[in-house]
């Protein structure tokens, strides 16, 4: 098939873009991503209850457009369980030493109201290009 104009190319790109975006940002870009470190260190420190508490809280509050991803070790093993919140268009925030209770706080404050849970922040993870 030949591409006869720039508009045709743009249309093809837009059609193909959705799938490459899964690769580019992990999920649909408009979604907030909550990434829980669930490598050995995270799980040993209690990341699983943290993960389920967050999913549960989001369900209770009926929050849409949030994607929960379990990941490996973020490298901050000293502060596991860690939760990284990536709101589109904002700097990613890394929380450490999260418990199931404070995890619910993160959902309520950060995800729902856009208010950071200051005392849990351990540093900003690296920004990817």
């Amino acid at each position, binding site marked *: 098939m030949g591409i006869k104009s720039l508009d045709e190319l743009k249309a093809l790109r837009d059609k*193909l873009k959705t799938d*490459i975006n899964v690769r580019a940002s992990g999920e649909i870009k408009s979604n907030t991503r909550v990434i829980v470190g669930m490598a050995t260190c995270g799980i040993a420190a209690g990341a699983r209850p943290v993960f389920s508490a967050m999913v549960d809280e989001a369900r209770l509050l009926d929050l849409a457009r949030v994607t929960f991803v379990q990941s490996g070790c973020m490298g901050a093993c000293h502060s596991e369980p860690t939760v990284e919140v990536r709101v589109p268009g904002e700097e990613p925030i890394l929380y450490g030493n999260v418990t199931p209770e404070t995890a619910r706080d993160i959902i309520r404050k950060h995800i729902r109201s856009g208010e950071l849970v200051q005392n849990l922040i351990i540093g900003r993870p690296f920004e990817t290009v």
Partner: protein
Amino acid sequence: MSAYRMHLLVCGGTGCRASESKLLAENLQALVMTAGMGREVQVVITGCFGFCEKGPIVKVLPDNVFYVEVKPSDAEEIVSEHVLKGRPVDRLLYVEPEQKGKVSSHGEMPFYKKQLRIALRNCGFINPEDIEEYISVDGYQALGKVLTEMTPEALVTLMKKSGLRGRGGGGFPTGLKWEAAARNRADVKYIICNADEGDPGAFMDRSILEGDPHSVLESMAIAGYATGARFGYIYIRAEYPLAVHRLEIAIAQAQQMGLLGERIFGTGFSFDIAIKFGAGAFVCGEETALIHSIEGERGEPTNKPPFPAESGLWGKPTCVNNVETFANVPPIILKGAEWFASIGSEKSKGTKVFALAGKINNVGLVEVPMGIRLREIIFDIGGGIRDGKKFKSVQTGGPSGGCIPASALDTPMDYENLTCIGSMMGSGGMIVLDEDDCMVNVAKFYLEFTCDESCGKCTPCRVGNKRLHEALTRITEGKGTMADLDNLKELGAIIKDTALCGLGQTSPNPVLSTMKYFWDEYLAHVVDKKCPAGVCTALLSYYILPGKCIGCTACKRVCPASCISGEVKKVHEIDQARCIKCGACLKACKFGAISKK
């Protein structure tokens, strides 16, 4: 492509393929199919991730998990643990050597942290053998934009404003090159992509062609529009079979889609590309020699002027740009000249890809903003020197470059500064040397290379480099004199001034720079007849330290020259006259009783 929930990116660069990444990808694909997830999980073979030290690399997305040193047999665990259960395979994660902490996400690895990828933006991200993947990341949009919205003059102005300079080594402003070719009127003009990557240790051009071939094709067409050329050649060495293979696929796909060929995007502009193979001569990286090689003549340089922009391939105006230079063009057009010019240092804009090699922990490809300090590249990104040894020098720019000492580690890396400290950007090879490397020997190594690769056309290069090499050989054999040192300096300067092309004009750089920064090592070889690094065998002696030798006879048993004498439990001795300096005794001794001086 359909909507997959998970992508397994497997590096298909030459380095990882040599470690069976192809079989690994096949295993992953088969296991994914067996698990019934063929519609959910996609296995993609990509170009080089740059972290060749730890290859083969597998990256899992959207989880953004980065696996290193993955074997074909690891496929099962990745699929059963990670793909099925969402549990990353801990043992395959990258261990950061400084903190010993495992790092899964690639953005958090020190190796990637300070990098900014423009030329390598798609390497390790898209499947280079699928044009649709390139299109999905804005591929060919830049070509579409220039053809439909810009005049060739405006395009040249944009390139000039961006400040992009040739990445092959010379650093000539790309916009000016295009302008010169555009200005010269002729019925036929040519674009040439110089993919004759020759510096020992440099492999960025290969990686770009293997990982993102379409970006080069697109840029060549853009350059064609700017200069008025409608045909392009890619001059690539035949020993890059994978790059050639992927280029061939890419050209065929682009032609099929009408992105190369007649009347692109329905405009009046037509452009096509063919591949020309080089036989791997270093001098053919020089543009006039390269042009002669395409013409079927001997690969020898000719005097400039006339520059190729006036009279190049078959006497027609020709614009020759390097692979990495081309790879920078589409983002400049899509994001603007100001964006590009905001990156880098005052006179060197954008980023540069460096190939890290030698005694460094993270061997691989890195792309960093111009002006970054050498220290950051070597210690932060490169992970420091292997085995905890001491940094001595870094050789940049290959056989045309020089050796940079520790005192210049804080020099910002750009064209001007590197030239200022006696080296050059070159194509971006960076060979790190530690305390065990002898600088005289390193200079000799590069001279050996230039002597081999000199085409022989001009006398300064053909004869001069030979004389330099002979003097260096005498010095490393302990037969050097102070007069040799004076001659090296004088002859080096003459060759630089009088050689015909870039090869000869820069070939004395490794000698002159090491003499400038490591003069004491030259003196030690000539005056004391010693090689401080313990490399030059003719200047070495092995001794047994009586205080440490316990008479275990281990050295005596391994000595191939049978020149070690001594009885059990008594101190041994090496007969210096018969010693062949092989170092076997040093390796065999468990008590540190052998000394090398």
